[in-house]
Each structure stands twice: as structure tokens, then as C-alpha cells.
């Protein structure tokens, strides 16, 4: 039976994930966020209808995927801060590319904290449908000044 890591299953894992995303956002994307406890299904978040999303798969000693979804206003703020542009200068393509990069960095940061000695390879991040991959109880939500962010790390198995 594949190992399943649901973020809600462990307070310690949740703490690691929250610390990682806060560090990544603050260090490279110049943004702050706070955990927003959530018991909803992803489909119940109305902001996801226009969100920007990315998916990263990983494999090696563990395998699975991370899915990141950010409301459009928050994605625009993150992209403009990352690129040093005014919001008016930041295109939809810029937003999508920056969210892909954020997903890549975030996934790598979390995995290195969870399994520092592991050997994992990340796939190139891809844009994805907003709620696909967030289904289930494991997604975590965050509140940013400009909007919302949700993400989910799913570990499908481990190679021992």
C-alpha cells in the first residue's frame, strides 16, 4: 500500500510545511502569508475559479507530487515583486511562469526538510487546472494581503 502523506495527519509535518512556504515566500518573493485553517473541499473555494496553478512531480527515494494554487491578485503581487515590475507591467505569462518557479522552489524546499538525506528528482513544473490535485483533506490554505494560496503535497510511495 503506498505511503500517503496527508498534511493534516501530522502537526509536525504541517509545521515544517508552513515554515517552508513562509521562508520561500519571504526570501525570494518578498511576500508574507499566514496559515488559514480550512476544512473546505477545494471546490468550495470561489477564488480558485480564476486562480493560477502549478504541479510538480518528484521521484527517487520517495515519489509523489505537489500542487500549488494562488488567487490571481496574489499571483500578480508575487510575480511583480519577484520580477521587480509594476503590477501593470506584469503579464499573465509572467504570473504563470513565476508561479511555476515558486512551485518548483517550494517543493524542493519542503522535500529537503522532510527527507534531508534523500535523493529526489523534480520534474519541470507544469501549469494545471486549478482544483485538480487538491482534492482530499490534505490541502493547506494560506491568507496573503492580496489574496489566497493553497497547496497540497502528496507522497504516493517510497523506494526503500
Amino acid at each position: 500500500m503506498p505511503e500517503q502523506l496527508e498534511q493534516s495527519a501530522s502537526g509536525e509535518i504541517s509545521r515544517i510545511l508552513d515554515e517552508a512556504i513562509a521562508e520561500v515566500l519571504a526570501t525570494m518573493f518578498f511576500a508574507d502569508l499566514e496559515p488559514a485553517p480550512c476544512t473546505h473541499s477545494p471546490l468550495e473555494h470561489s477564488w480558485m475559479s480564476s486562480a493560477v496553478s502549478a504541479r510538480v512531480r518528484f521521484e527517487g527515494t520517495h515519489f509523489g507530487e505537489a500542487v500549488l494554487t494562488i488567487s490571481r491578485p496574489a499571483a500578480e503581487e508575487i510575480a511583480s515583486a519577484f520580477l521587480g515590475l509594476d503590477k501593470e507591467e506584469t503579464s499573465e505569462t509572467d504570473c504563470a511562469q513565476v508561479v511555476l518557479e515558486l512551485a518548483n522552489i517550494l517543493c524542493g524546499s519542503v522535500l529537503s526538510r522532510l527527507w534531508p538525506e534523500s535523493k529526489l528528482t523534480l520534474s519541470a513544473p507544469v501549469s494545471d487546472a486549478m482544483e485538480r490535485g487538491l482534492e482530499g483533506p490534505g490541502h493547506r490554505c494560506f491568507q496573503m494581503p492580496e489574496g489566497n494560496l493553497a497547496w497540497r503535497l502528496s507522497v504516493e510511495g517510497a523506494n526503500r
Partner: protein
Amino acid sequence: MAYSVLIVDDSAVMRTFIRRVMTLSGFEVGECLEASDGEEALARLRLHPQIDVILTDINMPKMNGEQLLEQLRSDGMLGATKGRILRMISLGADGYITKPFSPEALREELERILGERNAGAA
């Protein structure tokens, strides 16, 4: 002293970010070139052998960061260009920095490496 820099990353937004934070952090950048993979980086270096610093990602299509370093060594281009490779994760490079990194951390690592190079050349 302004340094010439080659940024190698398959993400265009990451190249923009690195270029920007080097300037923001006070690191003096002269000529700044970009490449989206190792092959493109080699082509840039053949045309611009005066590059002082190469910052390269590891995971890239076509030719990754490790392969780029190996190629530069086998071609003898490191000595010829006086180049220094800063890889995000290194196997024998002059330094490395892992994401996420702050502008200050990038500047400190660059200054450490270039300080060692300049001391060695003196």
C-alpha cells in the same frame, strides 16, 4: 570593480530575478549574459571568454549544470576565461547556494568566491 556575469537557468523569470537581486544587493555587475541551458552557455562563453562569474542551475534540459561544468573543465575553458562557477549544488565547484536564497546570501557567496580568486591571483 564590476564583474561580467553569465546566468544559466532554464527559467526566464529566474534569470531575471538573479540579475535583479545581484544589482539590488550591491554586487557590481558589468556585462550580464543569459543562457537557458548548458549548450547555450558554452556558445555564449566561446563568444565572450572574458566572463568572470557563471551562475548555473543544476536541473536543465539538453545540458545540465553538472555537464556544463564537466565540459568547461575538459575544454580547459575555466583556466582560459578565469571564470568561476557558482552552482546551486556543487560537486567541486567554487561555491553553491540553494533555493530559496536572499539577495544578501547571493552577494555574500559571490564576494567570498571572488575574494578567494583575487587573493589567489595576487
